[in-house]
């Protein structure tokens, strides 16, 4: 039997550079896509993740003043007039500066107007800890928005997901917050050499990253990679872990987690960020309430400590859950 494969040519790229690539592909696909933010144009972005866009797309890429409220508000206004704006908030922590625009204007505009308008705004933010930026430039901010109906939230953890989810976010007719983990910028991956819709990643679909029988570990972004590391450690002890990356927090793909639990009966959620009021606790509450019968051990949340993200390496390292901590918790549950 012969199989003919016509695989599209791919290129190697890292997580940081694939951001510009995804933006470029959408700017090229749809002339209604526009992009604004601080230093995103001439400077190519504070993280050099938007290099070349201004040169290629001209006036559709705009450098703004340091005015986060105006950035988000202007994106909403432009969206109401038919454009598909992408707004960059340099560090996710700065979402605090424009919290009102995000939660009261962007999230609620369509609902408040009785469905008169679509508000297809994508907000990109550099997220997360581990790079030594200190308490006001390191927060995983995605949980701040979990309680605000009207915002989709995506948290890509690989190059391929970054590319596919950012493009899907820009095409979505709803507001989407895209969290880009800055401690993953150097991560390598492959994307198509030419724009290819086959590489779009649908919003709301989890990825079963590794299959296993004994425990389900759910983790995003940086923690996804640490969960995989933990799964390697566990394999040496004969425990097989299934690792699921939800990739999207709103809407959340509960079905994939439930399917996995039918097999493993044990749930560990690893969340970067303090434990209270987050997607991890919400997932555990939801599984406990609706699928209690599936569980053979207490569902467990591994989270960061309830303190701000400290600057110094030993303290920041300890703040972030690591692979050996995840593996230790799993072993406890397996022996429960």
């Amino acid at each position, binding site marked *: 039997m012969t199989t003919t494969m016509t695989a599209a040519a791919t290129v190697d790229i890292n997580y940081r550079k694939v951001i510009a690539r995804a933006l470029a592909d959408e700017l090229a696909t749809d002339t209604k896509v*526009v992009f604004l933010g601080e230093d995103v144009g001439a400077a190519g972005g504070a993280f050099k993740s938007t290099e070349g866009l201004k040169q290629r797309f001209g*006036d*559709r890429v*705009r450098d*703004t*003043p340091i*005015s986060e*409220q*105006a950035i*988000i*508000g*202007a*994106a*909403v*206004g*432009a*969206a*109401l*007039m*038919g*454009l598909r*704006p992408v707004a960059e908030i340099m560090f996710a922590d700065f979402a605090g500066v424009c919290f*009102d*625009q995000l939660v*009261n*204007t962007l999230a609620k*505009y*369509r*609902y*408040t*107007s*009785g*469905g*008169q*308008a*679509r508000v297809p705004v994508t907000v990109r933010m550099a997220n997360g800890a581990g790079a030594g930026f200190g308490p006001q430039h390191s927060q995983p901010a995605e949980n701040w928005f979990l309680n605000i*109906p*009207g915002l989709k939230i995506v948290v890509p953890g690989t190059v391929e997901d970054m590319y596919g989810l950012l493009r899907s976010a820009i095409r979505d*007719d*709803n507001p989407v917050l895209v969290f880009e983990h800055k401690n993953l910028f150097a991560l390598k991956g492959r994307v198509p050499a030419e724009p290819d819709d086959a590489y779009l990643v649908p919003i709301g679909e989890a990825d079963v990253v590794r299959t296993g029988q004994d425990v389900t570990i759910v983790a995003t972004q940086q923690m996804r990679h640490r969960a995989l590391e933990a799964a390697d450690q566990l394999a040496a002890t004969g425990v097989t872990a299934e690792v699921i990356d939800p990739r999207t927090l709103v809407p959340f793909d509960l079905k994939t987690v439930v399917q996995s639990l039918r097999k493993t009966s044990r749930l560990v959620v690893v969340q970067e960020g303090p434990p209270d009021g987050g997607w991890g606790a919400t997932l555990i509450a939801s599984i406990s309430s609706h699928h209690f019968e599936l569980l053979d051990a207490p569902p467990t949340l591994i989270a960061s400590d309830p303190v701000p993200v400290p600057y110094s390496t030993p303290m920041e390292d300890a703040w972030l859950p690591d692979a050996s901590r995840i593996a230790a918790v799993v072993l406890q549950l397996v022996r429960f």
Partner: protein
Amino acid sequence: MTAVQTETVTRDRLLEMQRRMCEIRAFEDIVKDWFSRALVRGSTHLYQGQEAVAVGITSALRRGDTTTCTYRGHGTVLAQGAPLDRSFGEILGKANGLCGGKGGSMHLADLSVGALGSFAIVGAHLPISVGAAWASQLLGTGAVSATFFGDGAANIGTFHEALNLAGVWKLPVLFVLENNLYGEYSPITTTTANPELVDRAAAYGMPGLRVDGNDVVAVFDAAASAVARGRSGQGPTLIEAMTYRQSGHSRSDPAKYRPAGELEGWLARDPLTVAERRLHDMGVETAELDRLRADAEAKVRRAAERALSWPEPRPEDRFEDLWVH
């Protein structure tokens, strides 16, 4: 402060402006009555006394132009052409209200006429008009966006961010500052280091026009020059319309903090009266002016009765209109 060159407003045009001002006045009088009878929930913020600002500005706009306004926004949304009955319906929380009953008094919006809406967070809407104007600039439509806000909003951060961004990008925005002398319950002099708000325009590289906000013709003239400037790509304008909030801040505010005689002085310069005087000078008979006002009131009353007869939304309707599926 730049001098405004008065343009000619024809008799018919001024009659049309007066008709719209009378409709807004009658609308707000009914809303006030409904509140006193507990027909309306939450709070409301009435526009009586400021009608000339909304009507003067929107009379200078054309189809495709947009407005954003505050929670004191009934007048602006109506002036731009939102239907009376569905506006009433929204305030009553009816299924057929402009927003299906999801927004209420503080959120009237009618995108079909360019009224991008009423925003209930002070100052939040200024950047929305900046964005609408940015789209106009990028798409080359020539459309302008007028954003209405009070003197209170001049002290919140979005004022600075929006005026600066519009100034530096030369966007076609009319920043319409309705200076009604009170930010909620506080007189402007107790909250604002320099109460000469029009002077702030210079800080953002745009002209500032201070006009008599109770004279619809003066407001229109200022708007017309700002619109021309915006359409020709020269950028935004700050218009400070000096006016007066005849009611308190909201339904719970009797406005006892106002000095004796202040209200009476402004009532003598009521925008409807000022326009009537102008029309009289143009040869319009008193009887015609009385008929215009009576016709407007009757029309508004009929719209109110229709809205009252409409059904409530179903509880399950609350799940609609959040997401685009």
